[in-house]
């Protein structure tokens, strides 16, 4: 009785969470343009997707932007995390506090402030402004991810390396970097996903000549329902899922104690 109830609750929650995705998934293969009824299996929406140059362009833009932003954010974030972990400097506490503030800032606030900044500084909106904006919201995530992993390790490890004759840089490269690697990769993947599906910030700071995928989809849907969008969303979902799984696996990798 209790067991049956438990199964029912779990099933209900799963249904609530995943039914929309299942519907999306099914309709991306539905051979019908307007009807909501099942008309048979087809791959033509995926073909239509490939034949839509605007969409393909936007997709390429998005991927290029996500790779660039994730890479920049990961490099800066890793260096920042190492600095927070290894050195005691003035303003260290406020810096880590500010990172959390940034983590919790609503996207819309960030978007408007970045736009203001770009306007004030006369930065033209386009790829450059997008990269800066995406790095800004990815950075706290990479710092926090890498720092969390580093802080699990004995601070004496770097000292031990120094003691054995390694210079500061070599100690970082031979000890901290290998130890932090799973978190660095996870931080990159996280940033990549964040950047790929960002709408709010991109909406404010992108220019006409560099359109990104989420905005393209948004404008397509506004003009009327297109089954290609289902196909595209399905692809995006699969990609995100793969990335989330990969980062989870990396982060969960057992820490040698």
């Amino acid at each position: 009785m209790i067991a049956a109830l438990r199964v029912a609750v779990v099933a209900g929650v799963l249904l609530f969470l995943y039914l929309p995705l299942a519907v999306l998934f099914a309709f991306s293969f539905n051979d019908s343009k307007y009807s909501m009824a099942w008309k048979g299996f087809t791959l033509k929406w995926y073909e239509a997707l490939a034949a839509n140059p605007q969409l393909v362009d936007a997709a390429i833009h998005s991927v290029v932007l996500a790779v660039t932003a994730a890479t920049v954010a990961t490099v800066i974030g890793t260096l920042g995390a190492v600095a927070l972990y290894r050195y005691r400097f003035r303003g260290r506490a406020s810096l880590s506090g500010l990172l959390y503030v940034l983590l919790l800032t609503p996207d819309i606030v960030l978007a408007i402030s970045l736009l203001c900044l770009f306007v004030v500084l006369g930065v033209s909106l386009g790829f450059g402004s997008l990269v800066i904006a995406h790095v800004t919201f990815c950075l706290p995530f990479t710092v926090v991810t890498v720092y969390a992993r580093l802080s699990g390790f004995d601070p004496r490890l770097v000292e031990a390396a120094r003691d054995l004759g390694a210079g500061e840089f070599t100690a970082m490269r031979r000890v901290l970097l290998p130890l932090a690697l799973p978190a660095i990769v996870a931080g990159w993947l996280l940033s990549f996903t964040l950047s790929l599906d960002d709408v709010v910030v991109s909406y404010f700071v992108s220019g006409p000549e560099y359109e990104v995928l989420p905005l393209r989809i948004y404008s397509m849907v506004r003009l009327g329902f297109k089954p290609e969008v289902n196909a595209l969303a399905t692809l995006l979902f699969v990609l995100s899922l793969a990335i989330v799984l990969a980062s989870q696996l990396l982060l969960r990798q057992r820490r040698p104690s």
Partner: protein
Amino acid sequence: MNASDPQPPAAGGANPAPAAHRDGALQPPVVSLRGIRKAFDGKTVLDGLDLDIRHGEFLTLLGPSGCGKTTVLRLIAGFEQADAGSIHIDGRDVAGLPPDARHVNTVFQNYALFPHLTVHGNVAFGLEMKKVPRGEIDARVADALATVQLAGYEKRRPHELSGGQQQRVALARALVNRPRVLLLDESLSALDYKLRKQMQGELKALQRKLGITFVFVTHDQEEALAMSDRVVVLDAGRIAQQGPPREIYERPASLFVARFVGEANVMDGTLLHVQAHGDAPANCRWNGGTQPATVDIGGVAFRVRAPAGSHAGQAVAVVVRPEDMRVYGPGEPLPDGMAHFSGRIVERTYKGATLDSVIETSSGLRLIASEFFDEDAPDFDHPLGEPVRVSWVADWETVLPRDTAGAR
């Protein structure tokens, strides 16, 4: 350097001239600390520390938690810089020299083994940093692992090893570099009692075999006495006393040392009479600079040896180790004319090799006596409440002036 060398046999400490004296006792100290001061956030941790570490010695820094032991090691290793004073390693001033440029290696308290490297990778690390050729690295790593009895463990990761094995890897990782000085920070404290005893022996044997200078930090006085050639007792950033273990234990220079190193009965008294000078009895443990005296402790007059310069009427503390106390039961005759307290047994603890009794004297003192079971008295016992008389082996006390004793 030959025997007819005209150079005066300058004391090593006063003259840290590099490589001037290469033979035996005349050798300059490997490490020499002069007037070291170190404060953290305005709180003074080391306060004008002077210390010479001689080549090949096993030196132990002993002291309570927070007295600055680790800080001394970190200064020598180069992880911290002194606020004032100088450090010489092999006659060279190492101020500003980073850890990787110093000929010392550290065995960290929690080993700090690299978790992502194998045992081989850990031990080889220092040699790789020095760009030693691969073939030589492998040979030296194998040699170091054999020295710590870990041959065959090359491919393991640190987390696949027991605490004792990790400890040995940490030791091998440091020793493989053939350091001038090996710094060990509470390196045995994470091990269980039995393993610790075993590693103490192994460490000491290894040190003798390799002839490397060991600077060992511990807050375990038993460990310090068992392993060291010289013990340096630190108290709040200052050296309270230094010397061979036996001297530290038998001739504590202050009440702090007496209480910290081993157990001690500390009795307050007043000197009644101080004799100008006299020959120390043959069985006296120490006779340098002492004078026969009489001390009044709770109304009983004992004959003691007071430090030179004592005067009648002075307040002193008389320190006696529990195993030097003598307890006489109701039926036992006291040696002729032996001064003693009367009291009764208020606590008794069977310790296996000894019977520890707490005696409360009629004057209100609580004294601990530790008596060994031997062939003369294989099964003596002191029942609780038994009236006894207590004294100690003549001249095996230490008399300390009360004013320095009050320092801590």
